[in-house]
């Protein structure tokens, strides 16, 4: 399992940041992703593998119209 924004989510072999965001249906264009406290730049999302037991924060930067 991994923790995503405080909620338990099933870990999958080979899951990357990009795949996780897709799985969560996080389509918003401005998301700050931290894996175990470290910011993962958007350019690295496709390649960055998330280890099991990780704590992921995917913070959407939006404060409405």
């Amino acid at each position, binding site marked *: 399992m991994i923790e995503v*924004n*405080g*909620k338990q989510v099933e870990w999958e072999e080979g899951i990357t940041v990009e795949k996780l965001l897709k799985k969560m*249906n*996080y*389509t*918003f*264009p*401005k998301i*700050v992703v931290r894996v175990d406290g470290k*910011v993962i*730049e958007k350019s690295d999302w496709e390649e960055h593998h998330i280890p099991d037991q990780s704590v992921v*924060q*995917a*913070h*959407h*930067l*939006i*404060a*409405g*119209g």
Partner: protein
Amino acid sequence: MAKSIEDMRKSRRALASYDYDQAEVEKGYTGKTLYINISDNTIKSKNVTEQMKDIFIGGKGFGLWYLWNGVKPETRWNDPENEIVISSGPIGGITQYPGSGKSLVVTLSPLTNSVMDSNVGGFFGPYLKFSGWDALEIQGKAEKDIVIFIDGDKGKITIEEVDIDPTASHLVSEQLTELLAENEKDKKNISIVSSGSGGENTNIGILNFSFYDLRRKVARMKQAGRGGIGTVFRDKKIAALAVKFSNLSGRSNNPADPSKIAKTGVKITREINKFDDEQFRMRQIGTANLMTPMNDYDLLPVHNFKYGSHPDAAGLSSDTLRDRFTQNMPDGCWVGCALSCCKAVDNFELKTGPFKGEKVLVDGPEYENAAGLGANCGIFDANYVIEANFYCDTYGIDTISTGTIIAFAMECYENGIINKEITGGLELTFGNADAAMELIHQMGQGKGFGKIASQGVRRMKKIFAEEYDADPAFLQDIGMENKGLEYSQYQAKESLAQQGGYAMTNKGPQHDEAWLIFMDMVNNQLPTFEKKAEALHYFPMFRTWFGLQGLCKLPWNDIVPEGNAQTDSPEKIPEHVQNYVDIFNAVTGKKIDQDEMIRQSERVYNFQRIFNLRLGFGTREHDASPYRALGPVTEEEYESRSERYDKQLKEDLGIDPTEMSITDKIKEMRKYREGRYETLMDVVYERRGWTKNGIPKLEKIKELGIDFPEVVDVVKKNL
């Protein structure tokens, strides 16, 4: 309507005039307010005191202060002593930083019977200031329709009768601009404020503030939309306000440190140019960029806020609307705004109403219009939304309230509370665009069922209960208003913090105080009541600040700077917060920091709360929320997201839902959610320095320095 501009020119008859020496702008202020009483045609100059600048700053702060002094506790919105105050703010009018041309309008509202404020673009506020006036304070009521002209070039004010038809706002803007301009280029020096027939026929009248688009050669309009300010305007028999100022320059605001402003402006303009296309695409779609993500995250209001998404939402997706907007145009509503989000549909051929067959420019649709007029009414047709947007603007009615009102009427219709006999034949089912359009025309023109709908959701509930035997409790649950103001267009059921962000507000459920849905519901950054309360303190205070300065909120967080992710609080966009502190200091020569910035807002925010109290509101009972905003009211709502709700019953309440009836599930869920909302109120009030009844404590107002005797007196009477 005048037959020609020449006829209009000949018809002008001055009722009063006033010559003045234009005060120089000094560090963002002229130090003068223009007071006009249209009952007796008094026109005079009032001094802006240092105390006003220190405590109320400008914009909404000035509006509240003048209104406080102009009205009595028993004053109602349509009494002559009610005022309309328009003020930009010390930063308002700079051209180097995006979003710096806003005006704030303050009055007593026909919807809430309390204080209303609304923030609007267009050129009026900056031109008013550069014509010599930090604020315009209008009191009284005219006998016949009048136009107030402010000639900032010549230093002359006139109150005039003019042969102009005030019923269609886009024509009023066009015609008065034509009347005052010496040539085509001169039109950019003019701004008109008008309402429309909706201001006469509804409680949701708006003010349109014009700005001339030199490339399109048309007077475009931005709206002070919330709370029926246009209704007050037309009740006073004001057909229009007009200002002319021809000498705008980058130095018109005469700041203390122009180079600091220029540097800060260059920095953010570079960010916009570099990142906007990959971030929010404000320059392509404006705020309508939110349509797709809101649907994706189950936050788009659908069918009177029952649901948060819809299978047909693609009909109003961000990209669908982008394709309707003319691209690569300088769409800023004030000079120098690189964010340029004020999108428009050009050459739109109207299919209905008094302008049927004409090709017009439509300002918008913005997110709220598409979400409210479209999705919330179950209509996912861009042509409908564009046409509805046009007519709401030119009739002068609030698109947000209109959307919520029609959605409410549709739910009542589908529940048999109202029927064709009552609606005059309108089949108000969700998704019926023809019926919705007809209702908009009826509201704007004061006809048929439109006369009921145009009174707003709060009065509709009363009428439906008293005259059509509807269940008042059900109407209370589904009628999306708080304090008498209709909700703006976000689904807040799964965000407790946003439920407070809507209902624990000064003017009612408009999202300009706090928008915390993602922080709370998706990011889970506010897991405790204390964290939610902290956000419901910080963000309303921070966002109030824009309205004191003449600023737009959008360039704060609709563009995100490089390196923001590495900061301690990315959601606050710390670099941009510091930009604002720097600009304020560079304009005024003062030396505030980020803490003092929040204190500036706190003074005004608490003053507004006490103003509500003085008028008989401003206590806990007025912060109550309709249950539709907190949770599922009906079985179909519960069933539509039963997996989510059953899980919550199990995990959050410790109840096994397996054998429960749906009625019992709804009942348990409601008890839980309403209990949490009550707890949130306790914690938020504590954080804001208020009593359990939501009244600012005496020590709080003393600490803030707003302990004027009359303010203390109001608080003491209510403790």
